[in-house]
Every structure is written in structure tokens, then in C-alpha cells.
């Protein structure tokens, strides 16, 4: 299926473009493009929109996506071939993907796949039933291993039918019986409902102002907002020479460190040193209290914790 480069009859631009060049789609594409600094980055999402509308990705739709994202058609084609979820050919109404990876494998996904191939009469490498109802594909890990063996029908995880609806109850994995029940449910639904409702491939976009400076965006870049960083972990120790050594951690944007010493009941500035310094030495008796106030281009920050000078060594 998605991985096989089979020849598919491609619809022409005249058939595709009227479906894509409609106001509702173009608004969504504009919304996507303004979310990224360059239009190119919206490519994956625009391809999703095209696939949602057409059901698969004909080459003309890839070209259209490329023109919207201002990339070359071959770039868009390469990207669409790289990712397995872009469908390069139409699928049946119920696109059944069964996980074959290790967690599902040990719980019997091979049996389920064999059963599915037999009961639907198609290959699990992307076969489609003649009534165009089911396409079956074996895929790698779907990311719901707690429900192994697990499968997806279109965009929903399904392991059982609950209250007449497709569901994945907690801890319930597929069995051949459950698979048959799900297939019967799908066939029943095909009789009563004309077509599957279209589902928003991007989970319901909403209006945003976009990335600052991007095409069509109206948002402003970040302004300086953060408080001035204080000095952290201020500690006082004694060197071998009997001096008091202050150490601390601080941010690179700090330009000046004001070292304050307690005299009487108030702290008074003892020194102002460069923010690059890592330590500071002083001669002082035991119990002298120090704290540090940082300064950046923005101004002064909060004062740090108070560190007390310890007793001199051997004293």
C-alpha cells in the first residue's frame, strides 16, 4: 500500500483544484502557514488537509500543497513518499490497519491478520475488497500496546463494539470473534449510512495570531520579561590562610555582584565585583553575615540568602 510504488491512475488538475481552491480550505491553509516562521514548514499539515478532502494524495494535490508552501513539487513529493500515513492511492471506506509489532505480535496479531485476510479475502499488504468497503494493511506499532493486538479503522483505535459503536475498552485486545463483530458492524453501517463523515485531519484548528514575523502573522516577538536573577547558594568558608571565602552560583547575564556585609542591624555594601567572578575573599571574624545582590542591564535583583562566616581553622 503506502510503501509500494504502484502505478495509480492520477486525476487531472481540473478535477482536483475545484475541491481544494475553496474559501474554507484556503483559510485553513493560511492559518497553518502563519504558525511557522517559513511557509515550507506547514507542508506536512497542508498535505494532511489535502488528504482529508480528497481521501488520498494524488500527484496534483501534492503539487498544490507545494505551491501553497512555496516549495518545489519534487520536495513535496519526496516528503509525501517518506511518511507512511500519506495515501498514495485511494483506499476503501474502512481503512483497517492491524498492528504487527512486538507487543501485539506476542498476543497473536499474526493470527488476527491471517484471519482478517481470510475473512475479507484480501491481502494484508494493502488489498481492497471488490465492494470498495475495506482496505487491509499490516502496520508497525500503533502506540496502544495495552490493548494488543490492536487495530485502527480510519483514524480510530478499535478492538470491540460497545453500545453499537466502535470502541477500545481499557485492556481489551482483538480476537477473531471481535474482529468479525467489527466487520459485521461496518457492513451494517455501510447499508444505512451513505458515507463516512469527514473528520478534521488536524483536530480542529482555531484562529491564532501565528509565529512572530511569519507570513500573514500579526503577533509580536517576545519582550524581556524575566525578573533579574539573584545569586543562589551563597556560602561562606575559610581558606587555609584564614580568610573568609564566599562562593555562589549566578546567571551569565549578571554584570555586577554587590557583596553586602552586615554591620550593626543593616547590610552595607562591602564590594562590587564583576559578574564573571566565581569567589570573593575577605578578612572577618566568625559569625560575620554576608549576602549578595545581583545587577544586570535591567537593574538590581533580589538579595540572596545570608551566609555566616565560620570559625577560623584550628581556632
Amino acid at each position, binding site marked *: 500500500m503506502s510503501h509500494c510504488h504502484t502505478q495509480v491512475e492520477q486525476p487531472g488538475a481540473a478535477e482536483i483544484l475545484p475541491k481544494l481552491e475553496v474559501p474554507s480550505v484556503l483559510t485553513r491553509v493560511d492559518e497553518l502557514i502563519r504558525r511557522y516562521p517559513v511557509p515550507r514548514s506547514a507542508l506536512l499539515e497542508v498535505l494532511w488537509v489535502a488528504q482529508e478532502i480528497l481521501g488520498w494524495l494524488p500527484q496534483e494535490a501534492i503539487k498544490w500543497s507545494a505551491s501553497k508552501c512555496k516549495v518545489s513539487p519534487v520536495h513535496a513529493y519526496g516528503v509525501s513518499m517518506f511518511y507512511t500515513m500519506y495515501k498514495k492511492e485511494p483506499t476503501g471506506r474502512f481503512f483497517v490497519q492491524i498492528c504487527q509489532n512486538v507487543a501485539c505480535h506476542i498476543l497473536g496479531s499474526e493470527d488476527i491478520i491471517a484471519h482478517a485476510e481470510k475473512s475479507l479475502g484480501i491481502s494484508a499488504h494493502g488489498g481492497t475488497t471488490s465492494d470498495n468497503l475495506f482496505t487491509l494493511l499490516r502496520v508497525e506499532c500503533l502506540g496502544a500496546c495495552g490493548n494488543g493486538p490492536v487495530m485502527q479503522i480510519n483514524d480510530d483505535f478499535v478492538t470491540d463494539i460497545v453500545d453499537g459503536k466502535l470502541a477500545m475498552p481499557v485492556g481489551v485486545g482483538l480476537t477473531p470473534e471481535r474482529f468479525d463483530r467489527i466487520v459485521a458492524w461496518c457492513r451494517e453501517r455501510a447499508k444505512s449510512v451513505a458515507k463516512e463523515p469527514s473528520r478534521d485531519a488536524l483536530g480542529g484548528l482555531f484562529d491564532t495570531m501565528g509565529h512572530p514575523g511569519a507570513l500573514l502573522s500579526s*503577533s509580536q516577538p517576545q519582550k524581556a520579561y524575566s525578573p533579574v536573577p539573584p545569586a543562589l547558594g551563597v556560602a561562606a568558608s575559610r581558606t587555609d590562610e584564614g580568610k573568609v571565602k564566599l562562593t555562589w552560583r549566578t546567571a551569565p547575564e549578571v554584570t555586577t555582584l554587590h557583596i553586602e556585609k552586615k554591620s550593626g542591624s543593616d547590610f552595607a555594601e562591602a564590594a562590587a565585583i564583576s559578574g564573571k567572578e566565581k569567589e570573593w575573599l575577605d578578612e572577618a571574624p566568625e559569625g560575620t553575615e554576608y549576602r549578595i545582590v545581583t545587577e544586570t542591564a535591567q537593574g538590581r535583583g533580589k538579595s540572596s540568602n545570608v551566609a555566616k562566616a565560620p570559625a577560623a581553622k584550628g581556632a
Partner: protein
Amino acid sequence: MTTLTVTQNFGKGAKDIGVYKSLGGYSTIGQKLFDLSQFELIDLVTRSGLRGRGGAGFPTGMKWSFVPRNSAKPVYLVVNADEGEPGTFKDHVLMLEDPHRLIEGMILCGWALGVRTAYIYVRGEFLAAIDTLNAALKQAYEAGFLGENIKGSGYSLDIYVHRGAGAYICGEETALINSLEGFKGQPRLKPPFPAVSGAWASPTCVNNVETLMALPWILENGVEAYAAMGTPKSTGTKVFSVSGDVKRPGVYEVPLGTPLMELLESDKYCQGVVGTLKGVIPGGSSSPVLTAEEAAKANMDYESLASLKTMLGSGAVVAFNTTRSAVGMLASLTRFYAHESCGQCTPCREGTGYADRILKTVVAGKGRDGDLDHMLSLAANFSYTTICPLAIADAWPIENFIGKFRGEFDAAVSRNPEHAADRVDPAFRPGAFW
């Protein structure tokens, strides 16, 4: 009673912002955050000992400290929700149950790094999670937690969901950045590391969903309370996704350092193994497998598993019993890595497919003597020769499955009546694994 730091809102309807706030959500987005400078917040996360929950277990505070500050370029935060490692499904459940906690964590991280625009890269299969996230983001914008000048702080943050389109390799951070930029998801050479030059050649921080979701609890309850949980080097709690032969598979949050067997057998968690335990994959498909004896000794933290020569990875525990064939499991894994190799580096592109084709012949009963040694030699040669660790992630299971269950593999080879005949290298191209 285990303290829950990430999954405490499960089953309470916290998808809705009203419910989430009534459970104490968004309480950090106020003076608690706005009084902190960036430097203090990064220091706080460093002291909490929080390590990246996506697989590598890199200390989060250190990762943040690598992001240059006051850079002329914008700083991006990209949330890695491209959960593709076989066995892992925790982020899927986390996003479905508690999307606002992720948004709150992103605001905290954004504040610490000065992020203006953040993206959540969700794998394409999780459309329901994308729906949930978009609905939650819309509510958060309406409540003033996102957008320009959040709650009058002068800080602005926008969050967008980016839907991936099915590529396991996009879980690797530089591949994820390439995919976000609109390229094929092929990893980039490091250095430069994303923290210096990532998305759009700007400083970029890539964090896992669970890592960011742990932040609100840390800020609210304090660093000491978080660091007190778990082990000294692996602090806090971790969400494990347990699957395979257990009675109650699912997503469980336990303190790091919890014995593996407690996770599998406790009534609170998986309620026991179905059948007799044969082995456990402890950290997602790429982590080396543990035999039942090793599993009995293992504690679920980074150091204990490293001492058993495996890894905690993304916390995906796959238990299997004695009825399961190790050959079949390895065949399923090699097929996966051959399929998901991005095709950029020759050793990986050719080697993973080659190893897969050899094992396929063995599984089909056409194995020859020497096939297994050839696979081991391939694995040794294609690991550590590529840009990203995908080749290593294939080599480890090959080396460990064959090494630890050699008898089964030999038996599979000797099913071929002509197994002693000369080998024919199935080295043909193009990839026969489709």
C-alpha cells in the same frame, strides 16, 4: 500510598479546564512563576533531579542550561509526542487524560527558556489526542494562559500542535526538528546540538510529554519533595506502560527504583503474569531483553537497569511468557527496524534490511548454519557507524535475543534438513521486506 505527580488526574475528566482548575491546575501560573527568574527556575529543575522521560534519561535542568540566553534568535520549545517506540503508550494516555497539565508544564518550561512559540509534535496515529490537545489549547487561550502578555506578566507564549505523518524515526530529536521544518524526518548530525542550533537554526529545546508534565507538581510541592521520591540518582516517579502477557496491561505511575516484579505482580498494578514468565523487555523495543532471572533482580530505575546492561528507555515494559517464541519476537523487531530505517546512512539502511532478510529465512525454516553468527556480525558492524541510534536500537535486540535465547534460535535453524549446506547470502536488493 504512592504519591502521583503526573497521573493524579486520570479518570477525573481533567480534559476540561474547569475541572482541571478545580483539581488545583494552573495554580503555578501566577506569582509563583512570575516571581522566579529564569535562572532560578532552571536551578530548581536541576536540583529536583528530573531526567528526560523520553528514553535517554538526560537531566532536564542541564539540557535547559545549554540553551543560550538573551540570544538574538527566538528560542523554540518542541514537545516530543511522537511516541513510536514499540511497547510505549504512556504519552498517548497522558495527552488524552490530562492535556492541560502538559500545557501548564510547557508554560513553565517556556518561561525558563524565554520561548515565544512552542510546538507539540504528535504522531499522526493519535488523532484523538490531537483533538483533545486542540480543544484544551483553545480553552487555555480563552482563559488567558496562552497568547500575548500572559496574566499581565509581560511574557508571551503560543503553542501549536503539529501532526506527524507516520515515521518512527521522527521521535529522534533532530529528525523531529527536520519533520517540523517541513523536510523528510531524517536525523541531523550532532553537533550542533538542538539547544544551540535546532529548528530553523535557532536554539531549540526538545522535551518529552511526561518530562514537562512533571514540572507543575515540582513547582507546587517543592524540589525536596520530588527529590525524596525514587532513588538518589533517579528521583521522582515514572509512568510505565506495561503490555504483553500480564493480567492487567496499562499505564502505571510508580516511584523510580520500584522492583520490576512488583510492577508486574502487585495487585495495584498488573496483577501478575499470564503463564510462566520467560523474559521482559524493560524499556521499549530497543532496550536489551531481560530473562526471567534477570527480571527478578531488576529495579525500575536508570542505574539498576544499566547494571543489567539494559536501559529504562521510555518505560515500556513488555512481558512475555514461556509459550512465546523468541525467534518470532526478534523477527518482528528486525522487520520493524528495517522498515523504519530512514535511509540516510548506508550501514543502517542496508544492514537492518539484510539482518531482517536473514532472520526471515530462518523463520521460514530455511536457515543455514552460520546465519546467526552472520547476524551478530552485522549488528556489531552497523551499530555506532550511523548518525542516529536507530541502528544501535536494532543491534541491541539482535545481540541480546540471540545471546540469551540461543538454544531457540539454533533449534529454528536446525528445522531446515539442509541446514549444514553452504550458506547463500540473501544480500539481494531491493528490499524484499515489503
